[in-house]
């Protein structure tokens, strides 16, 4: 297992290196250089321009520039944002990262789960109008013109029906006198989510070790206890209402992201499940007299999950793209919106920085998916 992980890690590093190099060439490929964007403003003194040139080594040979680029990358120095001067690109990005992470992680998990569940069901009850209509509506949602769709979601659910807020991630009236900043709350929320996930995971491992995993109510009880104690902790923290406000604002964007992206996972799961269902161990599981649900979930879906997890990386990139679109429509100032705004305001360092971060995020997710895969597939675990 260690060998496998090490190898994958090495591959991720190589990919990262390629990424850095690619980003360098992207910057090189544009007409002019960074400093020429500064010079758009005739009032900017030459010394500032020369400082920018020095920072990016624009006055040095290409090789040196590349090394400098590597160094800047390693030290998180993406330069200074033009539109948020004097904030550095890193500062701007770090401010937005928690918001994107909260939305994006939740949406990815939800849409993955939804897609997996539906795909499983589709394969299980193959054929007939259910399959065709599910496939076609899934594909339609997959290819629907996202910005318009997101807007229609707002129009219908937030404006006409009034069930959810009209975009944004919080209600200013609720937050006017909030004792903490939204980013702190996002931080706490992410922490809570991570803590619950880790505790649940450990609990499941423990239960499995004790051979108790099969008893349905135990995991459920652990989950309920985890969530309940988190809720109590939040309620007692005095900022629970703020978290609630954020959650309220998250529902619609997450629903939208899920709707536009579950189809990929769904169709993939269906195919994977169809292949799995032909395996002998599925017949064996049936022959063992296991209930259909156990055969479907514990054996077929569990094995069908493996290729789906591998392709999770694909859907991650897709979700990030969906995020760019969704964030702009839902007034959710995360990385996607940052990227778009940076491009539209010609803030190249910020745009590059955001892209690099989005790429890093995806790389990390890639690595996580790898680790997850190792956990899911014992054949790799014990290689």
């Amino acid at each position, binding site marked *: 297992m260690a060998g496998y992980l090490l190898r994958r890690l090495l591959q991720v590093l190589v990919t990262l290196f390629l990424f850095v190099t690619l980003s360098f060439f992207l910057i090189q490929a544009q007409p002019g250089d960074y400093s020429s964007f500064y010079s758009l403003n005739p009032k900017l003194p030459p010394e500032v321009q020369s400082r920018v040139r020095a920072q990016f080594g624009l006055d040095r040979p290409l090789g040196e520039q590349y090394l400098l680029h590597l160094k800047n990358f390693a030290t998180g120095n993406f330069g200074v944002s033009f539109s948020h001067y004097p904030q550095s690109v890193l500062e701007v990005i770090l401010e937005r990262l928690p918001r994107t992470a909260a939305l994006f992680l939740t949406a990815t998990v939800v849409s993955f789960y939804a897609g997996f569940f539906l795909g499983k069901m589709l394969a299980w009850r193959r*054929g007939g109008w259910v399959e065709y209509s599910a496939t076609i509506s899934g594909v339609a949602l997959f290819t629907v013109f*996202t910005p318009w769709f997101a807007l229609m979601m707002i129009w219908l659910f937030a404006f006409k029906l009034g069930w959810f807020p009209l975009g944004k991630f919080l209600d200013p009236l609720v937050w006017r006198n909030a004792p903490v900043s939204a980013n702190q709350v996002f931080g706490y929320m992410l922490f809570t989510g991570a803590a619950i996930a880790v505790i649940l995971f450990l609990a499941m491992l423990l239960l499995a070790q004790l051979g108790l995993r099969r008893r349905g109510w135990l995991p459920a009880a652990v989950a309920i206890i985890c969530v309940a104690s988190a809720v109590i902790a939040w309620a007692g923290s005095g900022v629970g209402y703020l978290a609630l406000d954020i959650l309220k604002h998250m529902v619609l964007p997450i629903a939208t992201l899920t709707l536009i992206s579950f189809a990929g996972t769904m169709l993939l799961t269906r195919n994977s499940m169809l292949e799995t269902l032909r395996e002998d161990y599925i017949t064996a599981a049936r022959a063992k007299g296991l209930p259909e649900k156990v055969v479907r979930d514990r054996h077929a879906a569990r094995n069908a999950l493996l290729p789906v997890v591998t392709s999770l*990386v*694909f859907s991650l990139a897709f979700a990030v793209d969906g995020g760019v679109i969704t964030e702009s429509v839902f007034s959710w100032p995360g990385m996607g919106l940052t990227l778009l705004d*940076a491009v539209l305001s*010609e803030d190249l360092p910020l745009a590059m920085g955001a892209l690099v971060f989005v790429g890093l995020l995806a790389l990390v997710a890639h690595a996580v998916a790898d680790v997850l895969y190792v956990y899911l597939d014992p054949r790799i675990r014990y290689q």
Partner: protein
Amino acid sequence: MNHDGRPPEGFAPAGRTSLWAARVRLALRSSRETWRAFAANPIGVVGVAIILIFGLMAVAHPLLMATLWDPTTYDPVTGFGFDEISHPAPPSWRHLLGTDPLGRDILSQLTASTTSAFVLGLVAALVTVGIATMVGALAAYYGGVVDAFFMRLADLIIILPTISLLIVLTALLGLNLFQLALVLGVLGGFGGTAVVIKSQALSIKVKPYIEAAQLAGGGPWHIILVHIVPNLLPLSLLYMMFTVTGAIFSEAVLSFFGILHIRMSWGIMIHTASTGGYLLGGASYWWLIVPAGAAITLLCSSFYLVGRALDEVVNPRLRGR
């Protein structure tokens, strides 16, 4: 129907022409069977039907412009509906789908954009398939460093969110339709498609006729071009479909954000409606959004559906019942 099977004449040191002729014959024969398997799947047939309808639209535009449509009124970019009192005008007999906020005929824009959507999709798809097939074949044939490099590159492209990358690229370079198609093609070609094609190429590489060809003294390029690449084409064709979907969708989104330099496209149509503030018009200005939006969704879906249906034909494991 034997798509991943080898043409038996691979053993024979046949001349390249006769080899290809035989391939064409075989392909024709198998394509009939493929079509039968394909046609059994209503999803794929629906997809093909939609594509054909759009194909007709694309053909119709220049014909209509040459005959029925007077350019001053119906040019998709510079036309202007003088006959309407105000714009955007609702559908009428002169403007079957109404006009946009700038007084231009929506139907004309819709059909004109169909051509560019096809051009975009096909250029991107051809580039993708060209690159992916070569990269896949090379990586599979040579393995080692070549393989490692291309696969890591593919990894990178797979994990990079395309739209985000394109947004940045447009900022850096400023893309027009053709350049966008090239970029999308290159991204697709070095990305996910290359990985799939490579694994297919690997399975071909170990087939006995490759060994036979090697023993017969075939050089690497001969083997790649004559023996491996042709066998990758069915799978490549499949991935062409998915590339088309991605390309059309990306163009629409980028145009919607207003960062492409394109005169007319479905994305631009929605962008025009959006900048005019008609996006929320709902039913009252439906002709500004629904035709273009539906066109994007339908054409994207149809290529995707055809791809999926082909997948079930090409990939026998999925062929059910």
